């Protein structure tokens, strides 16, 4: 094995590779969490409708399952991202925060814009799910734009 001499000569590159491995492990774990939530949701929901497109009025699930799913979403959308912030450097933190700011601005500005357009009969009335989609999509797009800009 010739890894050891390379690691001794380039300790920084070895640490950088380890950092990259941790990043991919985090992304893999986040993907796994998403897959588990999706599988649980499809197994626990009853009735008609589609959660993924916001048709939840006719969907039901047992109270214990609802609490468990709420905890799972809190872990996926709050705990995991906040923990992720502790694993990145200040440059990546800045990119992530700009992404979240983009999503927040889109939700705050998006609702009144959508509401007045609906009042004018131009679009359907705003929905909570629609605002969620706007915020989520804006977060991702802002983050990608910042990443591509370098």
């Amino acid at each position, binding site marked *: 094995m010739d890894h050891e001499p390379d690691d001794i000569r*380039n*300790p*920084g*590159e*070895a*640490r*950088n*590779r380890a*950092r990259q491995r941790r990043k991919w492990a985090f992304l893999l774990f986040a993907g796994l969490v998403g897959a588990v939530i999706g599988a649980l949701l499809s197994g626990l929901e009853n009735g008609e409708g589609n959660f993924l497109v916001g048709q939840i009025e006719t969907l039901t699930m047992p109270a214990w399952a609802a609490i468990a799913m709420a905890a799972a979403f809190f872990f996926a959308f709050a705990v995991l991202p906040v923990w992720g912030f502790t694993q*990145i*450097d*200040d*440059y*990546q933190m*800045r990119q992530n925060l700009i992404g979240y700011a983009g999503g927040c601005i889109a939700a705050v500005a998006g609702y009144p814009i959508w509401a007045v357009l609906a009042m004018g009969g131009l679009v359907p009335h705003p929905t909570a799910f629609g605002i969620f989609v706007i915020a989520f999509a804006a977060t991702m797009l802002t983050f990608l734009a910042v990443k591509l*800009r*370098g």
Partner: protein
Amino acid sequence: MKNRLKVLRAERDWSQAELAGRLDVSRQAVNAIETGKHDPSLGLAFKISRVFDMPIETIFLEEED
């Protein structure tokens, strides 16, 4: 803010990944600092100073108006 990071790194024959590992930051962060797209935090600036064994003010230079 201008900096001499790229020159100092080249003098030591270090890649961006090598310097990133020594600083415990991402390679993208090193690239962003070198190209002037990102100013490092004070903590990272001190770490850079330690890695190159040079005072901060000889690595980072204030841009004149």
